[in-house]
């Protein structure tokens, strides 16, 4: 099947916050998981339609998952390089995983395609209310300082899982469309890309609007 955009998302966060379960929940457990051992990436794919300005865009979404190497703080640059958006997860019942979010953001700013990449912050395991350690206002306050959208999610019940991915997709698509619109303005260098003809989007670094 053909598609208009190939979009790669990366899930990040400490070990045990539920990244793999989150992706599993998102794809209803029916994804085909492919493992690239050289970079330690596991990825799942999903086809979807995205509506914007009255048009349907066919999206081929790739969700990249770590394979435990984050425990050793070893994520290679290739791991970050090609991702267009990031789902950053912490565990609402684990203080340390929340404190580490700051480090993850720093890593992202260093290695991602631009310094202010699109990120959605997810406080996961929201179903474990009796074991919650990070309050919603504390997480929201943190998210606001970094200007990140924040959602409380549960990979177990599915709460806000779709919404988190959709929120990220909207932001990434907005960035892509803004970049394309800008390129179409008169006086800009280069001619506008005909995205319908290209089966894969150009690397985001060339379209980065930040």
């Amino acid at each position, binding site marked *: 099947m053909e598609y208009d955009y190939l979009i790669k998302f990366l899930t990040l966060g400490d*070990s045990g916050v539920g990244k793999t379960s989150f992706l599993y929940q998102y794809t209803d457990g029916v994804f085909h998981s492919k493992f690239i051992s050289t970079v*330690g990436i596991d990825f799942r794919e999903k086809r979807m339609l995205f509506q914007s300005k009255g048009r349907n865009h066919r999206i081929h979404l790739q969700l990249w998952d770590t394979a*435990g190497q984050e425990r050793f703080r070893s994520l290679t640059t290739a791991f970050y390089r090609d991702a267009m958006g990031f789902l950053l997860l912490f565990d609402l019942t684990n203080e340390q995983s929340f404190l580490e979010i700051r480090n993850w953001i720093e890593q992202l700013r260093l290695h991602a395609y631009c310094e202010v990449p699109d990120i959605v912050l997810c406080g996961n395991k929201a179903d474990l209310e009796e074991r919650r350690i990070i309050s919603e206002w504390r997480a929201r306050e943190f998210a606001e300082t970094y200007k990140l959208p924040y959602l409380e999610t549960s990979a177990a019940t599915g709460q806000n899982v779709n919404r988190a991915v959709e929120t990220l997709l909207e932001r990434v698509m907005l960035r892509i469309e803004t970049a394309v619109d800008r390129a179409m303005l008169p006086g800009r260098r280069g001619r506008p890309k005909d995205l319908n003809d290209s089966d894969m989007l150009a690397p985001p670094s060339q379209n980065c609007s930040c």
Partner: protein
Amino acid sequence: MALNPQYDAIGKSFVQQYYMMFDDPIQRANLVNMYNVEHSFMTFEGKQLQGSVKIMEKFESLGFQKISRQITVVDSQPMFDGGVLINVFGRLQADNDPPHDYNQVFVLKPLNGSFFVQHDVFRLNIHNTA
């Protein structure tokens, strides 16, 4: 000091003993005795550490309990100060994560009839390109 002719046996038995302690969460803290308070360097995934205190802090900060490990090969060389250079190539699995290949280099420095780890470099074998 002369070359130590037992370098190969020393390398192998050190590696066995070191990982037995490292892989068991109860024994891991005893690794402090393998390093010198000042004269031990470690590079853990590019992070440079000096001295047993910093090195142990690093180990304690890692978010796994148990490690299952396969040692594929141990290559050792005698050093001219009587020490031993050891290169380990193996595969490890932290708790229930997928297994990863890794590489670790040790330099054992002789001290009062025994050794301490003077240098230690650890990397998972994960590449930058698919």
